[in-house]
């Protein structure tokens, strides 16, 4: 087990290194120069001297390889560098400020999704082809098929403008969380419903379930003791797997609802060529995904000894 663990951690480390190189290269390939943004909206003239001074200040005039190693070295020491655009603010700070917003939203959305998806998924599988199965299918299909920015705008129009129940943007009060969480939970819910339903459908015809039932165990108990507990495993896996999608899910939602989370920080930074921020964010996320994946695999290995060999 410990060699397996060491191996996995080593592999995870290489994944992160690979991603950091990839991001670094891609960001530098981007046409344009952040220096021009620092100079403002162009109403005033700029001189080459001014540009050179700014480039030198940020080390943008050094060779690329050197820039990479400086950055990677600092990163290993926990120093994410400083933002080009928000000069004076350490990137560590910006990320630390944005992460709680995104994580809170995702945690609520995930909790909501689980609370809805698990019972509905179970019910749909147990009563296959019944009305509840149909409803579940339709709800989850729509959840997957609706572009989230569209859904978000529609909800704002209905709940903020027409009904006046909820604020149209921001997180000033708890009401502000309702709509963004709802939008994010919709897709999550749809996916989890499908997984739950599928996992249970797969377990129902299996031998140990039949055995338990033939032994006279009440159906309800069989369901909870044997089926649901086993079906949770793939659900856990998918939840872990969805971590990689946190960023994609929140970019749009955070933009529409004007929330200062990771997703918006990322897009804004890409569009402003704020290298340090983009690179650091991607690496932070890569680490997060690698760690979560490792944890899910460990959970799996603990529960199901057959997998432990790899």
């Amino acid at each position, binding site marked *: 087990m410990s060699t397996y663990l060491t191996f996995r951690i080593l592999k995870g480390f290489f994944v992160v290194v*690979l991603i950091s190189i990839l991001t670094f290269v891609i960001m530098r390939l981007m046409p344009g120069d952040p220096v021009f943004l620092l100079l403002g909206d162009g109403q005033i003239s700029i001189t080459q001297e001014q540009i050179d001074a700014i480039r030198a200040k940020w080390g943008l005039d050094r060779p690329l390889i050197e820039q990479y190693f400086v950055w990677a070295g600092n990163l290993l020491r926990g120093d994410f560098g400083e933002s080009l655009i928000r000069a004076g603010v350490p990137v560590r700070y910006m990320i630390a400020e944005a992460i709680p917003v995104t994580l809170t939203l995702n945690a609520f959305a995930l909790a909501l999704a689980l609370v809805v998806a698990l019972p509905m998924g179970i019910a749909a599988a147990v009563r296959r082809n019944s009305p509840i199965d149909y409803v579940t299918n339709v709800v989850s299909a729509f959840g997957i*098929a609706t572009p989230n*920015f*569209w859904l978000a705008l529609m909800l704002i129009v209905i709940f903020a403008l027409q009904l006046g129940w909820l604020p149209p943007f921001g997180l000033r009060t708890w009401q502000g969380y309702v709509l963004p969480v709802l939008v994010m939970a919709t897709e999550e819910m749809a996916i989890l419903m499908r997984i739950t339903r599928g996992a249970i459908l797969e377990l129902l015809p299996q031998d140990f379930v039949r055995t338990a039932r033939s032994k006279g165990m009440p159906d309800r108990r069989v369901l909870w003791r044997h089926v649901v507990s086993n079906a949770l495993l*793939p659900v856990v896996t998918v939840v872990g797997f969805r971590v990689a999608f946190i960023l994609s899910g929140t970019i749009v939602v955070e933009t529409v609802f004007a929330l200062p989370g990771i997703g918006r920080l990322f897009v804004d930074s890409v569009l402003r060529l704020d290298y340090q921020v983009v690179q650091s964010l991607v690496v932070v996320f890569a680490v997060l995904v690698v760690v979560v994946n490792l944890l899910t695999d460990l959970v*799996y290995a603990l529960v199901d000894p057959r*997998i432990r060999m790899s």
Partner: protein
Amino acid sequence: MTSSTPTTNLPTPQGTDVQPRRRNKALARFLANRMAVIGTIFVTLLILVAVFAPWIAPHHPNDDLFRGMRGVGPSLEHPMGFDHLSRDLLSRVIYGSRIALIVGITSTLISVVIGVIIGAIAGYFGGWVDEVLSLLTDALMAFPLIALLIVLAAVIGPSLTTTVIVIGATAWARYARVVRAEGMSVRERDFVTAARAIGAFDARIIFRHVVPNVLSSVIVLASLSVGSIIILESALSFLGLGVRPPTATWGGILADGRAFILRYPHIAVFPGVMIVLTVLAFNFIGDGLRDALDPHQKVDRA
């Protein structure tokens, strides 16, 4: 995550000779699934609309301007009304189906081809080849797809080709995983060892024995991913990184329409509805295929 790879069907000894019978049964099962059939009909109609768009569309999607009609709502002659440049929205939505299908299907095909090849090679050869390729796959999985798309679209400059190639080149990891597991199991089998002993080519073994065995799971995954790619295209348009104007795309019309959601809501509603219906149709087909090809098979949708 290797362990979460969907378990594919139990290996059949000869790989191919049971297939025809199974296929017929599968077809019957698929046809019995009402939603899947409806989905198939919808997609077929959509393909026809896309192919014959120039004959179906009442107006030119980009060039026909109707003076003073900006944002005017639906009417008999213009069932979907006009967009923010006073063009006929119906014609644009019709032409938009082309892009939706091209992006959805072509990118999926590209990613399937890459994924199957990489997965099969990794699984079949094992060893350091597997390690390197798995590392690449893991890295891609850990890299949020939309982030990669945003950065790449910004680097290369957005266009239809960019969108298709970038999505195709980044969405293959999940196929690689499925196929890799199959490749591993095939490698261990006696007839492969025998084949290799008598000098059969690796490529031949891969294509004869690995690929056919994973095809059903790959097809299911692929049909489900067409929908999510169509959604992805609209998200890219939302961020201003989608297909270039004036090309009519649903995501693009939707993204443009959001600024006018209070005054001219129809601009955002119609393409939105089309996206929802199309993605639904592809998902129903995917579900139908999954149930038909192997009723017990579990496929991670995520």
